[in-house]
Every structure is written in structure tokens, then in C-alpha cells.
């Protein structure tokens, strides 16, 4: 761990409509170093998913800046941000978000194909094998259980060798046993590939397995803890 991979400065997000303004995030400041495991926790409505979206370049901030791997996301248009995501970012979603009309293998191949890479099938099969689903490569998402879909999603997230992995409640829709397996898989792959992990969760037990926890309430940081190695073992 060394260089900063994510820098957030004075970040705010305000939604306006005809009747009023809603401040979802207010004056957020933090940095994440390369290789760190970082979690954002808070109750529902605390702004954690909004913060994740802003950090990943999925949304525009109202004020403040986000720098991802040295690239300032503010001022980039959507296509430029997409390019950044394809190059540096992996995603794991609570609802898996697999492309329903593609097979498991095709889902894993897409990020590499978006890069213009050819001969991606072999690498994708290897990743599927790594998550234990090589024999299900030609199945569609509807033919897979929740846990299996999430494993495909993880394989897809790592297919483009991202620098940073954003996970939004990755075990939110899974039972406890499956959740454990998914957590283990994420952390293992993270360790193997040296990826920075940014995870949004309301599960404190999961959060405690990361290196740092950022606690949000009412759109503001109320606490930032660095966990010792014994705490997140």
C-alpha cells in the first residue's frame, strides 16, 4: 500500500426539485491507498450508496472533487468516465446486475471486449473456474442461483484486472452461508490481484474485516476508523 488511489475532497451531493433541496452528502473528505480494503457503513438513507456512485464516476457531484487513480473525474463527460471505469474499475452489485441475455461466460467477457481485446474467452474461462463455475459457463443468469450469479458477477468484476473494486452490499441479497462464501471469494481475489476494495455495507461484521471503516450518518462522516490487523483478521 502506498499511493493514493482514491482522493475525495469536499464532496457534496444535493438533489433539487421544484419544492425543495435535499442534501444527501455534505462535505465528505477521505483518501484510500492502493491495495487497501475500505468499507463505508451507515444505516439506510445515510448516503453510502450515493457516495459509492460518486467515487466510481457513476454520478456527478454537486461540489468537491473525486480523483481516481490520479484522474480527476469532475469535468469528464460520460464517455470519458466510462473509459476510466473500463480501465481501472470493477463492480459487484447487490442485485448482481448480470446481463440477462448473455451466458455466464459472455457476461465475464464483456469488460475485456469493451476494451477491444480479442481472444478473451480463455481468460474468462479461467476466471469462471476460479470462482468454481466453469461447468456453468453456458448457462443464463435465470438458470443460476443467487450465489452463483454473484460469483459470476465477481468474475466479471475482476476480468479487466481493475485497480479498484467497488462492491455495493455484495452479500445483501444472499443467505448467511452463501454470504460467507462470497465474502471469502472477494477478499481472496482481492489479495491475489492486489486490488483496492471499496465496499458499501450495513453489515458491521463484514466491515470489520476491512482495513478502514468510514461511518456515515445523515450524509456526513461521523467516524473514520483504521482497524488493526487483529481486528480484521
Amino acid at each position, binding site marked *: 500500500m502506498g499511493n493514493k488511489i482514491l482522493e475525495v475532497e469536499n464532496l457534496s451531493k444535493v438533489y433539487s426539485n421544484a419544492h425543495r433541496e435535499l442534501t444527501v452528502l455534505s462535505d465528505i473528505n477521505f483518501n484510500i491507498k492502493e491495495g487497501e480494503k475500505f468499507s463505508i457503513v451507515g444505516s439506510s438513507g445515510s448516503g453510502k450508496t450515493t457516495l459509492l456512485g460518486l467515487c466510481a464516476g457513476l454520478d456527478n457531484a454537486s461540489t468537491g472533487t473525486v480523483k481516481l487513480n490520479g484522474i480527476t473525474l469532475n469535468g469528464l463527460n460520460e464517455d470519458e468516465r*466510462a473509459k476510466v471505469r*473500463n480501465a481501472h474499475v470493477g463492480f459487484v452489485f447487490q442485485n448482481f446486475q448480470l446481463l440477462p441475455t448473455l451466458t455466464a461466460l459472455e457476461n465475464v467477457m464483456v469488460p475485456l471486449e469493451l476494451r477491444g481485446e480479442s481472444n478473451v474467452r480463455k481468460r474468462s474461462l479461467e476466471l469462471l473456474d476460479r470462482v468454481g463455475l466453469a461447468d456453468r459457463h453456458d448457462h443464463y443468469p435465470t438458470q443460476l442461483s443467487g450465489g452463483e450469479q454473484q460469483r459470476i458477477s465477481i468474475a466479471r468484476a475482476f476480468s479487466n484486472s481493475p485497480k479498484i473494486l467497488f462492491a455495493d452490499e455484495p452479500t445483501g441479497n444472499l443467505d448467511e452461508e452463501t454470504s460467507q462464501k462470497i465474502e471469502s471469494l472477494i477478499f481472496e481475489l482481492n489479495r491475489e490481484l492486489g486490488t483496492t476494495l471499496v465496499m458499501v455495507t450495513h453489515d458491521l461484521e463484514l466491515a470489520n474485516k476491512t482495513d478502514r471503516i468510514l461511518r456515515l450518518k445523515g450524509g456526513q462522516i461521523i467516524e473514520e476508523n483504521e482497524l488493526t490487523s487483529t481486528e480484521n483478521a
Partner: protein
Amino acid sequence: MHKPKKIPAKWYFKMAWRDARKSKSRLLLFISSITLGIAALVAINSFSSNLKDDINGQAKELLGADLELSSNDSSFHYSFLDTLSIEVSYENSFASMVFFPKNQQSRLVDVRSLKGDFPYYGKIETEPLEAENTFRDGSRKALVDKSVMIQYDIQTGDTIRVGLINFKVEGALLSTPSQSLGATLVAPAIYIPMDYLSATGLVQKGSRVNYSKFYRINDLPENFDLDEQLRADRDTLRLLDIRTETVAERKEETGETFDNLADFLNLVAFVALLLGCVGVASAVHIYMKEKIKTVAILRCMGGKGIDAFLIFLIQMSTVGLIGSLIGALIGVFIQRVLPVIFQGFLPVDVTLSISWPSILGGIITGLFISVLFALAPLLSVRNTSPLITLRASEDQPSITKDRLIWMVYGSIFLFVVSFAFVQIGNLRDSLYFTLFVLLAFVFLGLVAKLFMWAVRRFFPTNAGYIWRQGLANLYRPNNQTLVLIASIGLGTALITTLYFIQTLLINEVEVTTDNDRPNLMVFDIQTYQKDQVAELARSNGLPILQQVPVVTMRIQSINGYDLETIIADSTSERRTSPYRREWRVTYRDSLIASETIARGSLGFPEDMEGKSDLPPVSLENDYASRNNIELGDTIVWDVQGFPIETVLGSTRTIDWERVQTNFLALFPTGVLEQAPQFHVLITRVSDKEAGALFQREVVKNFPSVSVIDIGLILDTLDEILDKIAFVIRFMALFSIITGLLVLISSVILSKFQRIRESVLLRTMGGSKRQILLINSLEYFCLGSMASISGILLALVGSWGLAFYTFDSTFAPNLLPILVVFVSITGITIVIGLLNSRGILDKPPLEVLRNEI
């Protein structure tokens, strides 16, 4: 950091296929929208192309000669033809009665006495085949129109009497060159040898005979243009009262008639295509709404907006191409059916052949339409936010600021105007039509919004759950109420308008057979026969409804200008047609029921300076206006050699649809009583036997007198109109079926949104009955709002078309309106429930697995 490469083009095709393979049923519905419209276009264009080729190829057979000259003067002569080597045939034709001794019946026919080898090209088609030649062997033989032979049960070998002499029927006349459908309706043709014409006693001084000469020109010099020569001699020919027709003119005239037919057919195809366009737009709109999540995921992973756009553009283009190919194939089959549909209306034998330009044109049109009408919903996905992956409720960016989408809308507007212009041929009408369609969309959109607002605002919150859920579905987030009401409503509007206009056009040409109206007209009665014919009618128990004198005359001059002066003055804008026609005029001092005074007054004018002692005549108002003849103008008439100077004292508006002796020109009494004249008697017969008996007596006692049985003509006209109505309805079927397909596909495509809701309700314990009722209610509201809106639009559109385009009165019936409302609403509910049935009979999870 990995440097990204350009995405290879084949990846887009790969992704388009990957996505499409699980969406085949949806895409099939998309295809169905344009297939029938393209099929109609290809069939009609191919048929028209074949017909044009055949008219060109068989042009000489259309006329039967290189040149036809005709006149009412038996001694007419065109001296230019003396310089050429020619063969000439003669035909003298006139209307007269023919008597059938076999069954003692008679009928008005067009007697054509023939001398020479006409037709020089093509043939007179007869049954048996050889009758065309054998009837010219010098003996007293006749060819009789086949429909007359059937009507009067006449066989080959039977006898007919024409005037004073009998002829043997040599064969049935099937078709000849120079025969028009309209003429055969009133007086079908019979051919007799010209050598026996005078023996019939029918051609006397004053008889209305058309003298025709048909020429085959054997040694026309190379590069000599006969039409050009005739144009150069036009003035001379007019003065000599000689009418001409060449092969080129006949070809043009025939072509024009069938151009009008083709235009009508293309209009029908255009309506079917327009409906298809609506289907494409609504299908793609609904389809792309379901793909938003897919696009958002792609964007998360680094896909650009253009990448998603290209993937789905490839899908839509491919599907559009497949639909167009299928449509073209169906069109080729339908092309074979069209000659059968139009049998009886075609002047040439149609040779069916594949028209590759028509097929290619149809495919390109189908592809173009698919892409154009899919573009707007496709372009909107470019701006899909990847945030939807995190938050499904994230709003889609507004399209109002997207310039490209507005350019697409502009292109669609231009396309519809252009296509309408190609069909209608009038830019103003095309613009009005397109604006009407645009306003229709706006109206339907407003109806949808207003309905949703009203339900939210006014529906009682304490109503039963079924009602609340069913109506709440109409305004749920991502509802398709607006799209469905727009597509179903517009489809309903177009189909209903087509039906109303079709009915209006058919009614326009229907002649009413009122029980009190005259149905028998006796004409060519000489003055000395007048009283006897009237007495004959009375003795047969027939009322004399009208008995009018008719004097034949020509116009010598109007305000001092005669025909020669006008022709000699190249700058003159005066029309020559009043001088060139043979006028049939009557005289009386009062109006009849079908006339009203438009300008001036009957009787001697008081305020016409220096002209108050001239007899005042009255002209039909439109005729006078067209020919710039004003009140106070002096008209000198040539009444069979005797000039009579008159003044135009009034004009009349005439109701031509009434069966009465209506005249373009009317003289006062006291002027023409001593002029050579014939008389017309109008009566009414109560049944066919009485009519036949009277006709028989007339023909027996007065061979030169003719009788028109209007009832018989109306029966024949009804048969022809039935055929025309069938043709119109057959072609309209394309539009109606397309409209139904658009409706069905819109409803089916929207089902996927309801699946999860229905499954959720089922999971929570909702019964099949409850869910079906909820869905029925939603579909009932959608169907009824759409059909009512569509019917309102159709009523406005039909009124506009009737008033501005067809100059007619639009009076809709309630029954078709109710039928449309019940049908459209019913179909919407039935399709909707069929959608739901599949969901409710299976376990919820199985449904979710099967439906992506």
C-alpha cells in the same frame, strides 16, 4: 495501465445477436408491424409495373389501328391522309333498340356497323373464336355483347331484330378495342355488317350517328411523328369537326386511368405502412425501456453510449431487413392475386413477371422505415445513466435537450410529407395530412396524461382493491399508458377513417332507387309519334311523368365571336368547347324539381340594354362559369341551318343525380316550337314484366324509338360497384390487419412489465380471478380510452376529407362506431388476458425464470 484498443465492428454484431437470441418473440412482433405494409407496396408496385409494360407492349391493340378519326358528319375527310398509303375501315355507331324474338324482349344497345378489316391490331374477342371472322362473310350476322346474351338468354344461332331486319347471332362479343366500361353499362355493343345498315331503317336525317374511320398506315416515313402532324392540323380538324385518336393518345389515356388506380392502391399501401411505422416506433420504445438496465450495466463496465446505440441499431436494422424481405416475398404472391381482383377492369392482358425494382424498392423502404422510426428511442439510450445499476428509480435524462432526437423527429416529419406527396401528388394536402397525424399524436398524448391525472385526482381511495390496483397500474412509474394509447389510438383512427371514407366513396357512386322515381326513359320520339307513344304508355297503365321536346343545335357565335375567329386569334383565351359540341336543348317557361336559379331569372330580362327583345336562354351555372359566359352575353344558335340570336338571362344549378331530363341549355317557349325536334318521355314501371311488355310494344310499333331501362342499368351498375367495393375492401384489409397487428404487438410487448407485478401478487396469495380482474380493468381502460380517442380523431379526419377533398357530406352511422369501440377494446382486453393466462397457470419462480 492497459491502453484500450478500438472495439472491432464484429463485436457489435456479436452483442446484437447475443441479446436478440433471447428476445425472438418480441422482435417477431416488431417485424409483423412492417411486413404487411411492405407486402402491399411490393404487390402494388409490381402489378403496376407489369400493367404499364403491357399497356406499352399492347398499345396498338388498345386502339386496334394506327389512327382513329370520328365525327358526327358522315362526309368528313382529312386530306393529309391522301398522301399516305393506308388501309381504312369504317364504323358507324348509334344507340338503338334491339328486339329478341325468342323471348319478345328488347334492350337499348350500341349498334356498330362495320366495314373493313378492323381491328388491324389485336382482335375482337368472341365466343366461339372464329365468329370474329365468320360474321364478316357478307350474310346477315351479328355479334352480340356477352352480358346481353346472358341477360336475355340468347344463344349463338338465335335471331335478333335491329330496326326493320333480322340478324343471326354468330357469336358472343367478349371485348373489342375502343370499348369503355361506362359506355357498355348503358348500351352494350352489337356488331353488324355495314352493308345492311340502311336496310335497318334506323339511320335517317337527324339521327345521332357517330362516324368513325380506322386507319392502318403502311408507309409512315421514318422519324415521322403522326401526333405532331395532328397537333399542327388541330385547328383545321376542329373546324371540320373531326375528332382524332392515335395509339400514343390511347396509351396515355389508358395509362392515366390506371395511374389513378395505382395512386389509390398506393394510398392504401401508404396507410398500411404508416400504421407499420407507428407499430415500429411503439414496439421499439417499449423494447428499449426494458433494455435500460442492460445499457446501464454496459456503461458501468465502460461501454460508451454510442456502443449501446450501435448494438441495438444493428438489431433493429437486421430485424427491419428480415421483415422487409418477408414482406417482399408475400408481396410477390399477392401480386398474382391482384389481376384476379381487378378482373373486368383491365384493358389489357396482364403478364405477371417479377419486378425486381419494385421488390428492391420495397425492401429499401422497409429497412429505411424500420431504422427511421426506431432511431428516436434508440438515440435516447445514449444518455442512460450507469447509476441505474445502483438505483433503479434513477430518472432517464430528458430528451428535450437532445438535438439529434429532434433532428430525427424532423426527418420523420419530412418523410411522411414526402411519402404522402408521392401518393397524393399535392404538397398542400400532404402537409395537412402530416400535420393531422402530428396533431393526432399530441391529442392522444394529452388524452393519456389527462386520464392518468384524472384517475389519480378523482378516483375514490376507499374503492375496492381490484379497482384501485387496476387503475393505479395506469400511472405506475415506467407505465406504458401513453405509448399504448398513442399506438392503439392512432391505429384505430387510421382504420376507422379508412372505413368511413370507403363507405362515403361507395355511397357517392350508388344511385338511389327511390320507389317514386322514374325508371324508364323513351327517347328519339318524332313529333308525329309523340301522342301515340304517350297513349301507348297510358294504355299499359304507365304514368307520364315527363314529356319534353329536344332540339339539336350548335352555337354559331358568342358576343360576336365565332369558332374561326377564336382559332385564328392565337392570343384568345376563349374556350372552343361550347362551339364544338352538339347541343340538345329543350324549351319551357318554368323550372323542374332538379333545378334552382343560381343567377338572373327566367323570363325576359328587364335590365339588359338593347337586348330585352332577344329570347333569354338559361345555362347550367357551372358550365357557364367554366366557359366564361356571363349574364347579358348574346349567343347565336345554329338550329339546323337557321340562326337564332338569344341572350343569357339566367343560370341554373342542376341536381344531376336525379333521374330527370336535365338540360345544359333551356330556351323559353315561343321560339323553337317549329324547329325539327324529337321527344323524350319519362315514366315509371312497377315491375320488370310491365317494363318488358311496354318495351316490346314500343319496339314493335315504333322501331326507331329507343328505351332506356334505368332499373336494368342500376342493377348492372350495382354489380360493378360491388366489384369496386370488393377491391376497395380487399386493399383496405392490408391496413386493417396491420393496424390489428400493431395493436396486438403493443399490448403483448407491454406484458413483460406486468409479469413481475402479477407474480408478486400471486406470491402474496392473490387469486387467479383477482389478478385477471386487475389486468382486465387496466386493459379495459387502455383499450376504451384509445378507441374513443381514435374514433374522435377519425370523425374529425373523415369530416375534413369529405368536406375539403371529396366535396361531400359526412354523415357517420352509430353502428360502425360502436363496432369499432367494442372490437378495439375487446381485442385489447383479450390479448392482455391471454398474456396473463400464461403467467397465472405456472409457479411464480418458473415464470420469472422463463421471462427475462
